[in-house]
């Protein structure tokens, strides 16, 4: 009997015995994710079946309710029992860090949704994505006052992927989640209402580079499968502790996998896409990416390095040291030369990814909880900052160039003051959430003996402070231009700014409850 026949015969036998049972899915524990995906699919149906005039008024509440429901369920899950198990046949992990990250992502997505939902003159999205920039079709749809509503299901799919990414307990699920979160984002990036060419360029760049990095990720997964015979993180960890298998496969696989993960968080040298994409994408989508995607990507990175590669840390830590140092220093230095506010925040986000990596390097319970706290703190501040950017407008849309912000402090002191506060939080001035977060990760890093890394961290903070301060100088100490930008604030945007501001103050002055929460989430570390 040939091999093929043998396999076939066995297969038939198995089928005949009825041995393939339906996978066991813990619906209750996966409800937040499922709810978000369900809403996304419902959103697609709404696009198909609901009349154009009604779509917006159906999509927005649907999205809000979906996110709020998912968040409420996450809270219930976190409080009813202390979850620490795998679900869906081991494909997904439901543990403290997962729930903390999912809750954070959901809240941040809600705030981003406030920005995305602005419409009318304040709308951020092209009325018809398919219309060529500058074409008649575009002008017609503009004139007809059509509002884009496909963004809502797209966003919900992306958020669903972000929820699944840090929860994935095996590398294939992680890859699927990565793609679910990335693909809608590629599209969303290209939907800006103004400066459409720039936006489409951003989308193509993000797509090409993102696809490239996904390939790296997948190749890494394949090699690791070759090493451990499984894509399950815990099996890889077991194999490592047994010290068996081919080291070449392991190291090559780990390296390629890391490329895919580090790309998503924009760590140097995989950061090239960030400034272009952040600048070109519609600002609400930039806010979503800068907060939720970063949280999600760090969640996945933490899980991979703390679970699968825990016993490999003597190999990956030196590399990660290098990446963290490069990321902090390069992010801070290149930002100095930027003249566009969104690009500047993109580089600032790169530098912050570096600070976060110092927490990852700590590989301790404190490292985990401080990274979790930092992610939440940074997410709120960054959404608030991007929300302010959407408010400062010229005739041609947002006033992106820094010189246009001159004298904003005299024109609209409150908005400029709030933005200055966000910048000070990025710079890590005490009594802001940025300081608490930095203190937490640096403390974890010093405790684990990474003091030189922290010294580099504070030095690049000092460099970074220079460009944050420069923006404040432009806003407050320069004279306003005669035809300067105006501040247009829709109620939803104002609410987003207020929420970001509140979180930044509260997490800076009274961080205790949030630190407790992050600490509790990290007590048992990751489930295996």
């Amino acid at each position, binding site marked *: 009997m040939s091999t093929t026949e043998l396999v076939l015969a066995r297969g038939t036998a198995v089928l005949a015995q009825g041995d393939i049972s339906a996978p066991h899915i813990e619906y209750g524990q996966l409800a937040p994710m499922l709810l978000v995906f369900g809403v996304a699919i419902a959103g697609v149906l709404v696009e198909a079946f609901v009349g154009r005039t009604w779509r917006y008024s159906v999509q927005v509440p649907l999205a809000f309710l979906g996110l709020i429901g998912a968040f409420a369920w996450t809270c219930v899950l976190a409080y009813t029992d202390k979850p620490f198990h795998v679900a869906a046949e081991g494909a997904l992990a439901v543990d403290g860090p997962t729930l903390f990250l999912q809750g954070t992502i959901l809240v941040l997505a809600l705030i981003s949704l406030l920005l995305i939902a602005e419409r009318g003159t304040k709308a951020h999205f092209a009325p018809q994505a398919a219309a060529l920039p500058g074409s008649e079709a575009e002008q017609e749809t503009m004139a007809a006052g059509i509002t884009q509503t496909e963004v809502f299901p797209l966003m919900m799919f992306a958020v669903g992927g972000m929820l699944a990414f840090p929860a994935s307990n095996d590398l294939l699920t992680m890859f699927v989640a990565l793609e679910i979160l990335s693909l809608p984002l590629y599209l969303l990036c290209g939907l800006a209402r103004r400066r459409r060419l720039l936006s489409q360029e951003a989308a193509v760049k993000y797509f090409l580079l993102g696809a490239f990095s996904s390939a790296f990720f997948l190749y890494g997964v394949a090699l690791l499968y070759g090493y451990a015979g499984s894509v399950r993180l815990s099996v890889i960890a077991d194999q490592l502790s047994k010290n068996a298998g081919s080291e070449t496969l392991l190291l090559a696989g780990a390296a390629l996998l890391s490329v895919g993960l580090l790309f998503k968080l924009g760590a140097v040298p995989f950061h090239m896409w960030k400034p272009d994409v952040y600048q070109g994408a519609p600002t609400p989508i930039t806010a979503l990416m800068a907060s939720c995607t970063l949280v999600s990507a760090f969640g996945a990175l933490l899980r991979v390095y703390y679970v699968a590669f825990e016993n490999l840390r003597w190999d990956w830590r030196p590399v990660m040291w290098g990446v963290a140092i490069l990321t902090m220093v390069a992010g801070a230095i290149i930002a100095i030369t930027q003249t566009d506010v969104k690009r500047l925040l993109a580089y600032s986000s790169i530098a912050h990814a570096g600070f976060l990596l110092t927490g990852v390097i700590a590989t301790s319970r404190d490292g985990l909880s401080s990274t979790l706290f930092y992610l939440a703190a940074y997410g709120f501040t960054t959404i608030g900052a991007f929300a302010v950017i959407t408010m400062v407008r010229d005739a041609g849309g947002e006033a992106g160039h820094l010189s246009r912000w001159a004298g904003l402090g005299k024109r609209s002191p409150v908005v400029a003051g709030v933005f200055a506060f966000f910048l000070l939080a990025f710079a890590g001035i005490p*009594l802001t959430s940025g300081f608490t977060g930095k203190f*937490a990760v640096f403390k974890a890093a010093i405790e684990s003996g990474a003091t030189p890394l922290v010294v580099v961290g504070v030095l690049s903070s000092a460099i970074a402070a220079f460009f944050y301060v420069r923006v404040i100088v432009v806003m407050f100490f320069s004279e306003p231009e005669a035809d300067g930008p105006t501040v247009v604030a829709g109620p939803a945007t104002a609410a987003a700014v207020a929420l970001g501001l509140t979180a930044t103050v509260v997490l800076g002055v009274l961080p205790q409850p949030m630190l407790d929460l992050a600490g509790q989430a990290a007590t048992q570390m990751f489930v295996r």
Partner: protein
Amino acid sequence: MEDFPWLSVLIALPLLGALIVGLLPRGGDELVKRVALGVSLVVAVVAGVMASQFDTGGARFQFDETYWWIKQFGVHWAVGVDGVALTLVLLSVVLVPLVILASWNDADRSGGVDVPARRSVKTYFVLILALESMMIGVFAATDVFLFYVFFEAMLIPVYFIIGSYGGAQRSYAAVKFLLYSLFGGLIMLVAVIWLYPLSAKPASEGGLGQGTFLFSELSKLNIDPTTAKWLFVGFFIAFAIKAPMVPVHTWLPDAAGQSPAGALVLIVGVLDKVGTYGMLRFCLELFPGAANWATPVVLTLAVISIIYGAVLAIGQVDLKRLVAYTSISHFGFIVLGIFAMTSQGQSGAALYMVNHGFSTGALFLIVGFMIVRRRSARVDAYGGVQKEAPRLAGMFLVAGLSGLSLPGLAPFVSEFLVLTGTFTRYKVPALIATTGIILAAIYILWMYQRTMGGPPTEKVKGMADLSTREVWAVGPIIALIVVMGFFPQPVLNVINPSVEQTLSRVDKKDPAPTGNVAEIGARP
């Protein structure tokens, strides 16, 4: 009144005042000023009442409060003052109302040269009051983390004051000030964080078994010498920038040249004292071994600061920059006194901090009045002022003479103590430092001669003398300088017990008065 939270109230009051001032309706500038002055006077009175209950023979830290703030970080809201901190808190609360009075019109009028006049009066006084709250906080904090928070947060109001209300180069000066201080602060942050794992170590390894930032606990730490040296350097760099010492002093002349005179009193008079206060409190007591190790370098830098600051002061053509350079020289004396490690030297240094606040404060205020009148800070824009404005010139002379430590005026006592205190242990630095006094005579008297002496120049003719408001702003400081010149003992009684504590921590005893050179040299 035993358990009254004096210090928390003192920190909260100006902040509350700032909030009230901020919420006042637009356009009521006069009301804003009155409320701000009222608040600062209330704060001064409360502080005065508190000080009257200070027991010089009592516990080291009094009026102390300790509550948990951030448990995960081992951080407390812990405040309390010893003698040195108390005098510095008093210095702050005395200077603030006078500064508000002196800069009554500075915010709505252009304070410097060719500056656009459209500025918010309200914001200026909000910032001053916020700054007062943080100044009190930074001296009162007995938790290192809390100290750091105030230390850094303090920069923000100053940054906005210089940047919004300063002269033509204001944004350059503001950014330079902020970046220098922030850089120092971040270096210190590493050292601050490092203290946590050290204190979390079990007692058998020199730790406390529990991570904490409480000063009283941390001073029990037994840190291994190498680590202690690193930590000392981390703290010292931040304080040296703040103080400021050569070679990290260059932000001060720029900040001084551009900042409004009133705020300058607070920056040089109080803020910079945080640097020297920090050296005395944290560098010496937390890392005594490392402090002894670093003493030669620090003394050298201090002596260089004294001479270099004084020489550069002689050459300045801008009055505010001139006074700023004299301060660099004076800070050299303070650091010299601290690191001489004798009770005289350190008492003198602690007293010097207060006296310097008054004498430099008076000088800056009067220079500010002159600038308001003549719209120029240049020395050669004046001449013969004493004929036109005798009261102004008289006050200026007294303030100036106190700057050169004339006997009978307050700074003389402290400078004398510092020099004798240093001489008993380190002869050569003390001798070189003494030439600083001669240089002081040159820069002060020459400045007086060029601006006040001689026949009035064309532009100075018709210059108005001090108004009643201005007299009330400077008069109290001049009075204090004279009174403390003759009766320094009450202040010294408050300072001395805490200086004794510091010295015992550093494990130094005063050299015997008759000690010969060989014996002193033999000391480790």
